[in-house]
């Protein structure tokens, strides 16, 4: 390739700097022509077959775009400018290529999920559903809400107090604080299925203690509580990291001013430090909830699957939207379409919930941001 393009470039005696000076030649018109040419070249690929093959069209167009950009820039500008334009073309193409699967995911979920995105889906359960009966995911919505609420109830105070300890009470270099920091890192890396296995093992152990039978569960150690314990293991480190970062951003002058007024330390934390950091902390918590609400694997192991609504997380199996999606898709029943439609509707509900949580996080972080903090 270099041979060919070198031949196209007549004056190789120019220094690179002089070449760079000629940058104006690659006008907007040239760049538009290059892009249109690339798309046109791509379009040629579906001429022989007669039908549009989108994937091939896009791939060929992008490759042609990179190649044409380089060759044309090499022709009218310098080698350095051509490399620069090639890099720009490649980075932009990579971005466009990434958009394809991601847009496809969202589009597929919305398109197929809307088949059953109706009121029966949110009012009926899977009790006694077979064949072409529509059924619904009300019990899965309930399960998701109960398990997630329980998880948040456990991991938010746990995580927040740990962060407060790390920032406000311990000195950064103390051995205990460093150990906690390291273990939080370890916790962040626990695979979700392993968290599920731990919760399972933990509740098997609890079942073995006679006094604690009240906590233990009926069928095969499955319960909403066990699922919440597994999710707490996953959510707590996220809450700790988010709150810790936000607490460290609170300027020390605020604390000192509060101490100078004779306010005790705990009241300084509650009345001064936390309100200053609350926007970031709440945002972090909401995002952490968004992360765990779609978890499937640990719940598959700990919560199981139920056909009916179960509001009680301390006894019996429950169904969550994520596990429901999985089972409705892989075991859809006899006309598979009915079950798979339910799976897509549940998937759509999950994506919508995550989207709503993200929007809430964004709104919170702008509303609650304290004035005057950089």
């Amino acid at each position, binding site marked *: 390739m270099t041979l060919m393009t070198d031949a196209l470039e007549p004056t190789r005696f120019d220094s690179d700097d002089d070449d760079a000076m000629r940058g104006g030649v690659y006008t907007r018109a040239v760049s538009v022509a290059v892009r249109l040419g690339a798309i046109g070249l791509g379009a040629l690929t579906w001429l022989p077959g007669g039908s549009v093959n989108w994937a091939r069209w896009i791939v060929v167009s992008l490759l042609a775009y990179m190649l044409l950009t380089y060759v044309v820039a090499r022709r009218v500008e310098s080698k350095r400018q051509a*490399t620069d334009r090639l890099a720009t073309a490649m980075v932009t193409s990579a971005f466009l290529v990434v958009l394809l699967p991601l847009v*496809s995911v969202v589009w597929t979920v919305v398109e197929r999920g809307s088949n059953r995105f109706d009121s029966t889906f949110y009012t009926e359960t899977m009790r006694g559903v077979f064949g072409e009966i529509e059924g619904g995911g009300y019990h899965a919505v309930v399960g998701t809400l109960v398990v997630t609420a329980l998880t948040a109830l456990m991991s938010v*105070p746990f995580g927040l107090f740990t962060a407060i300890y790390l920032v406000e009470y311990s000195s950064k270099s103390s051995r*205990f604080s460093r150990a906690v920091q390291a273990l939080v890192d370890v916790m962040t890396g626990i695979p979700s299925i392993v968290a599920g*296995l731990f919760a399972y093992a933990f509740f098997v152990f609890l079942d073995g203690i006679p006094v604690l039978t009240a906590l233990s569960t009926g069928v095969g150690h499955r319960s909403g509580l066990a699922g919440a314990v597994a999710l707490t293991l996953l959510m707590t480190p996220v809450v700790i990291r988010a709150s810790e970062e936000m607490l460290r951003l609170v300027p020390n002058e605020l604390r000192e001013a509060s101490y100078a007024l004779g306010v005790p330390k705990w009241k300084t934390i509650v009345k001064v430090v936390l309100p200053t950091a609350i926007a970031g902390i709440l945002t972090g918590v909401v995002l952490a909830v968004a992360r765990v609400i*779609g978890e*499937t694997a640990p719940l598959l192991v700990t919560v199981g699957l139920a056909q009916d609504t179960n509001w009680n997380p301390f006894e019996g199996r429950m169904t969550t939207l994520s596990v429901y999606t999985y089972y409705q*898709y892989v075991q859809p029943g006899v006309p598979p379409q009915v079950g798979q439609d339910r799976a897509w509707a549940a998937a759509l509900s999950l994506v919508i919930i995550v989207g709503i949580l993200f929007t809430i996080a964004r709104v919170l972080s702008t509303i609650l941001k304290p004035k005057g903090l950089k």
Partner: protein
Amino acid sequence: MTITENPPPQAAEADSSFTQPISRLGDRVFGGLSFGAAALILVTLAAVAIFLITEGLPTFTADEGEFDRSFLAYVGPLVFGTTYAAAIALLLATPVAVAVALYISHYAPRRLAKTLGYFVDLLAAIPSVVYGIWGIAVLAPILSDSLYPWLEDNAAFLPFFGPTASTSGRTMMTAGIVLAVMVLPIITAISREVFLQTPRLHEEASLALGATRWEMIRQAVLPFGRSGVISGAMLGLGRALGETMAVAIILAPANGYFWNVITNQNSNTIASNIALSFPESSGLEVNRLIATGLVLFAITFGVNAMARKISSTGFSGAD
């Protein structure tokens, strides 16, 4: 910071009657709660280790005849499948993720960049089960119609693309691509953060010397962001290793070691094997699955430790 650790000593000594009664009880309770939460982290992690080990241990103490094969023979193909799938994902995702991060940090118009960053974060939060059913319903048919037959015809001399190509698309390659799509937002988010932190003066110095934008990126941005990219990739690897549902839905598993990525015979991954087998298992089977979970934990722990080491040694006074 020093002041927060030592509450003003003079004030306390000079006029202790003012400060003492207000602060003591509340402080003790609040401080105790905080310390307790931090200590609970240690307890929790210890509990995770203890419970997994005690529940996994019966696998090794059981009689030989209890299992159809030894634990090593059981977990070996799973470890292979886990690392293979994650390696494919990382190989595909890292270069693209770096490019996307560069696009967001240095190429896209500034206002667009913020929205794009938000979009990428949102994609990282889409549940894995959704990616899984998308992979099997949309991606697998496309690949088994176009890419796999082509690879079988034209690239069969490589051990990865031998016959016979899957017609259902439930292959290691499909799983790897879906995993790549899933870890891409993570690597992108971290790389973007470090790229944005490149000291402004480095960039401007490079541009002032006449560098083109790409040369500036190679001279200033990439060297500064290298450790960040690596630790981002490692975090992505950790996620890919532990990813369960997408693989469980997509892969057609078989027992053994398979290099070929386009057939219906694939080594399963540890996490996916647990998810598929656990609901129907009982007795020692459960113990064996928990033992494989421990192996997975050990692998991801190693990877994450490495990522931390790289990221902590990486930034060296560059600001």
